């Protein structure tokens, strides 16, 4: 029997099914009623419903075979703005049949395009405005050039509340026959915060790993097998002074898992903030992480920069055990 990932299985199909972002949903519904649409810019953190909202809007606008009227591109996967332009050209060259005179082009991670590429994109948007509306999606509006922003209606999505995330998890757990303890929900939320995609994926993995009886321990065990857990282990090894082992783990994350240094750094940051260490050390480490983060943008080698950070953690661990002042 074929079964989807739960994230897809329970993705709202219509705007009516969306449980959050009420204001945004209300405004989008008006577009559907008017059967007209400006160019859209959706910004907000991961897993809060940006893609879901535009897919649901397309569904409501075009009906069940809405897939024929939209094209999804992910800027970070396309090879350059020229490829994007060719695809747009091909897609937007004809107007659709039916009462809606335009198609919708969804461009996810649009904020990963360089400014130059965005300027080229803006020209493309203009050229095909008659037959095509663009929905650009990204994390930060500041990373979208002003000329594009001014041509779009901007929608700012906010992280989901703990209540919303848990409500949604409960609904899925019930339908999938999964028993989840309250601590299990807490652990999932603690890890995913307002990122619903992450929360649902974690629930599914935890359900699979436990014969569908999820508690906090199961969640932590699963986390130990996915990247955040391994990053945690790397930090613990460093604090214990096991630099060589910590570096091996770092290499395994970079090489075996193929993770991006920026992602590892982000996880290190959130782990450090949760560590039980003196606050002033957290601030110092945050400064050190910020420095590494900047250096990564400057073309330095990620592994060396991250290793230097691990060595600082070794020093912090040393101080915690009373071995002198760290990081001064």
């Amino acid at each position: 029997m074929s079964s989807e990932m739960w994230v897809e299985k329970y993705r709202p199909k219509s705007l009516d099914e969306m449980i959050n972002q009420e204001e945004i949903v209300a405004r989008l519904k008006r577009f559907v009623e008017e059967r007209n649409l400006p160019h859209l810019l959706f910004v907000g953190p991961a897993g809060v419903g940006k893609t879901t909202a535009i897919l649901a809007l397309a569904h409501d606008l075009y009906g069940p075979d809405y897939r024929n009227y939209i094209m999804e591109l992910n800027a970070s996967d396309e090879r350059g703005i020229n490829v994007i332009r060719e695809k747009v050209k091909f897609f937007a060259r004809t107007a659709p049949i039916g009462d809606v005179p335009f198609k919708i082009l969804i461009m996810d991670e649009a904020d990963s395009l360089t400014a130059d590429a965005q300027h080229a994109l803006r020209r493309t948007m203009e050229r095909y405005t008659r037959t095509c509306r663009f929905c650009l999606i990204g994390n930060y509006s500041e990373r979208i050039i002003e000329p594009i922003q001014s041509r779009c209606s901007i929608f700012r999505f906010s992280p989901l509340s703990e209540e919303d995330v848990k409500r949604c998890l409960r609904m899925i757990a019930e339908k999938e026959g999964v028993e989840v303890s309250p601590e299990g929900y807490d652990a999932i939320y603690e890890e995913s915060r307002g990122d619903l995609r992450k929360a649902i994926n974690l629930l599914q993995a935890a359900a699979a790993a436990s014969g569908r009886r999820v508690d906090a321990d199961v969640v932590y065990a699963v986390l130990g097998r996915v990247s955040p857990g391994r990053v945690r282990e790397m930090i613990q090894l460093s604090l214990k002074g096991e630099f060589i082992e910590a570096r091996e783990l770092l290499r395994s994350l970079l090489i075996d898992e193929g993770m991006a240094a920026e992602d590892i750094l982000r996880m290190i940051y959130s782990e450090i903030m949760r560590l039980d260490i003196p606050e002033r050390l957290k601030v110092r480490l945050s400064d050190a992480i910020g420095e590494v983060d900047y250096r990564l943008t400057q073309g330095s080698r990620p592994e060396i920069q991250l290793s230097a950070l691990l060595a600082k953690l070794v020093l912090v661990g040393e101080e915690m055990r009373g071995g002198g002042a760290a990081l001064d």
Partner: protein
Amino acid sequence: MAEQPWTERFRPRTLREVVGNEEAKDRFLEWLRSWEDGIPEKRAVLLYGPPGVGKTSLVVAAANDLGYDLLEVNASDYRTAKRLKEILGRASTQQVTVTGRRRLILIDELEGLSGREDRGGVEAILDLIRETRAPIILVATVYTSLREAWERKLRELMKLSLPIELRPIPVVEVIERLREIASRVGVEVEEEVLEELAIRSEGDLRTAINDLEAVARGRRRITLQDLEALGLRDRQLYAEEALRRLFTAKTLQEAKGIISSTQLNYDELIDWIYENIPYILDDPRELSEALEALARADIHKARAERSQAYRLLKYMFDELAGGVALSLERSQGLLGVVERHLRAMGIPLSLLKLEERPEGVSIAPVRYLGGDTWRRVNMAVRSLGGSWDREGRRWIVGYLRPPRIALRYWWSREKRRMLKSISSKVASRMHISTSRAVRDVIPILKVIFQSDPEMAEGIAEWMELDGDEVKWLSKG
């Protein structure tokens, strides 16, 4: 017909085949396409960069793809203004050739113009650009170290044209291209060889292809030994020598002298130091300071390369020499590292005799250890890169180990293919990018595939995963 050199035989015919420099490629094409709407503000593009990064290839491929007739001259062949104007003057006033094809003018080897006697040549090119009705592309090979002088010399040209810089080709892409060529000529090449050739080329694809052709001559199969036979593996000796001297240097001056006299390039040197620092410095503060200095050296190097301001490299020297080499004070060196590590693994040091020998730190049992303890020590030693010397009845941990950082550039072909195909299936079904799929979803899938076959089967069907992909996700 005489056999063409591989660099010609495999020169890209279409833009798709041109490797690397996506951003520059986009800007170049955008400029070229803008001619379709009339003569643009900048009538010439100046493509420049180090050798072997595809400057001429880009022009040839673009002309092919976009249907231009390419008129190609070497700047240095027509050193006088008069000759250049004779050759190009007429061509540049017409947008199309007699056959009706649009024309593209390529002036190659611009760097060949030099000195006062070529002044006229530069003037002539400036005139051409001001008046041309056909796109002109100037190509210059600029060794990065000479860039500043060169920029001064060609300031007017840079101002009048759209300068686009091409950068060295990333190692992975060099490997990819070499592999493709090897398979087209039917030579079997070990992955390690491709990796070595690519890293050594420093982003110069032409050199890499030439080297490959050189080793492949008369062979159906190329192994690492074949490469060594060509003398490409002396690096290890250089590195060992340099590191030994570096960490015993007493002054900044001495350390800098060692760095500047080594046969290694900066990347190699940084790799070797990076690999070995934790085996030399066991004191946490010294380790941290040395790694920070190394990281800072690396950032100075990156800044120098990005901004092409090579004067910045001297700060890299100082960090490497002063920050890394002179950091060793309290640390006990490898002996200290080994002691610390064994103790951390819970192994009583009273069972073992540790001493420094020429070949490395020796760890000898002082009495019979018993199988369990022996295995524990063995595991601890192996994680330091050491091994059991059966004849000497002791473990040896060598002083230096070659960098494994090169691995970062290289995954087994199988693994890359697998990750790529699974992540693109995940990406398209879950509306996310392939990199997010790698980061967030594939680890989740692994947990599911390794613990719940029933759920896994359903997902496999939904994602249309093939048998190999399912197997890959299911193994630990």
